[in-house]
């Protein structure tokens, strides 16, 4: 009898320790970024592109990387959305649940979801070589779109699957086509979840470095053309941290602060929109 009580106590202690460790690590990581990043932060950091000698510790900022990351993420999100929404609607409204295409597509999404971003980067690079495009904003957009497409599609699929059958049946009974039902009933019903799925995918896209390493390249100028290289925040952090100069390394911390702030903003937006858009949802 007593041994059971002791085991219960030990287990509870271990669980408390584990939860505390996980929370402490989260706080430590965000704390480290803030403590190191804030002193190195300045208005010039986020309002100017790098000037001459930036990587030796001279003037300039990371505007090129901020704009590049935003451009790549926006483009990739739009591209991934225009592919994943049809796939998800098709899986749920057009194909019978046990159809070969539906199971093949769901399995393909699982496989794609698991592919590491570096492999997307390598694959994107091969495709670009075939089409004769060099490292460019367009290449980065395509690679990141490939990376976030399965994340977005699977999150959306999970949401759309929860739509009650009565709701779609009611729509069909009124004579609506499958397309009308999908767009006017299913999408409206699941809008909060869909927005959250898009934002989650966006967060993954903006923070990923390995996929843009070869496809988007890096440049000190602000992105203006789809066919020129573009800088990204994760790579800016990586390169700045790799220099031997403490001033430049401090800028890596400031850049990390910017990236973390963007991620936190996106994840807060995901939660907020999840509540905001829920007023059309039939419960």
């Amino acid at each position: 009898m007593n041994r059971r009580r002791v085991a219960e106590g030990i287990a509870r202690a271990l669980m408390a320790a584990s939860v505390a460790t996980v929370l402490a690590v989260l706080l430590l990581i965000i704390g480290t970024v803030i403590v190191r990043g804030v002193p190195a932060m300045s208005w010039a950091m986020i309002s100017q592109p790098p000037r001459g000698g930036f990587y030796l510790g001279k003037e300039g900022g990371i505007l090129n990387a901020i704009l590049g990351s935003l451009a790549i993420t926006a483009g990739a999100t739009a591209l991934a959305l225009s592919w994943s929404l049809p796939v998800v609607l098709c899986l749920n409204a057009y194909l019978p649940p046990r159809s070969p295409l539906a199971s093949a597509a769901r399995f393909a999404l699982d496989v794609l979801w698991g592919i590491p971003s570096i492999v997307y980067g390598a694959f994107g690079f091969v495709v670009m070589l075939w089409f004769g495009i060099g490292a460019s904003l367009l290449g980065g957009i395509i690679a990141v779109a490939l990376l976030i497409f399965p994340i977005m599609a699977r999150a959306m699929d999970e949401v759309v699957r929860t739509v009650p059958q009565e709701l779609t049946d009611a729509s069909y009974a009124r004579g609506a086509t499958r397309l009308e039902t999908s767009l006017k009933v299913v999408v409206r019903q699941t809008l909060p979840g869909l927005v959250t799925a898009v934002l989650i995918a966006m967060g993954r896209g903006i923070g990923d470095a390995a996929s843009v390493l070869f496809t988007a390249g890096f440049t000190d100028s602000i992105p203006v053309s789809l066919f020129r290289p573009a800088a990204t925040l994760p790579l800016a952090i990586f390169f700045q941290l790799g220099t031997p100069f403490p001033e430049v390394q401090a800028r890596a911390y400031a850049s990390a602060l910017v990236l973390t702030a963007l991620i936190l903003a996106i994840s807060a937006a995901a939660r907020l929109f999840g509540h905001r858009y829920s007023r059309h949802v039939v419960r």
Partner: protein
Amino acid sequence: MHRRVRVRTDRIAASAMRLCAAGTVLLVVVIVCALLLKSAPVLARHSIWTLLGSSSWQPLRGEFGFFPFLLGTLWVTGTAVLLAVPLSLFTAIYLSEYAPAAVRRLAAPLVDLLAGIPSVIYGIWGVLAVVPLVRDRVAPLFGVSSSGYCVLAGGVVLAIMILPVIIHVAAEVFGAVPRGMREASLALGATQWQTVTRVVLRKAMPGVIAAVVLGVSRAFGETMAVLMVAGNVAVSPRSIFDPAYPLPALIANNYGEMLSVPLYDAAMMLAALLLLAVVVAFNAVSRCVLARIERGMR
């Protein structure tokens, strides 16, 4: 008249959407074929077993032995899994079995937040916090000197990165165990912990394994954070204080110069293909298990 237009629009949309769904399947095939095609030259030169088993990495002489990199990946991933599995399972059990509803509601977004932090940020934190800790405290404790950029540092950073993956999936699997089973066990006089280990864990075991496998496959392909803290020396590590050079880091580091050396790009593509094969196999297995559980619970 409207009716015909509407039905025709619906038909067109149906074929367009079907094309998108088929495109998803096709994409997997295209990725595998592209990598196979691109790595064919190096596979024609050496057999796959020589490439995997040899330790001689001399691209300029056309020798590509992947063994040190494979071993580096295994060491780092293994360390990460050993650290992450107990931590994440205890946390998942606490969240699903013990925690009050308020804690659960608070914890979910925090775990998601941990999952959303980019790998470069984990890398920076590894360089600032984990590497010095290993160099100044942990390594001297064991009487060895280490630069800090080693298997252990890479493993710790990776472990933290896969924590949220395992916690999330495991908590979901525990949640799918029917409440009645717990109640039956508690009614027979079992303590809560006995219920967890003998009823919930036993019932959820396949799902827990699937969760861990998902975490492992995530660790296997993770690039930037490991690249920043694992040391990147192309020698097989002998202890957790030795530097390691995992496969993803190899690809990331050598992409720039590989086009100038013959067969080098093919070898890099082979590395990517290896990574893909392992990760896809792991994922497919765990997804199948999870899908079966989901169906069984319905």
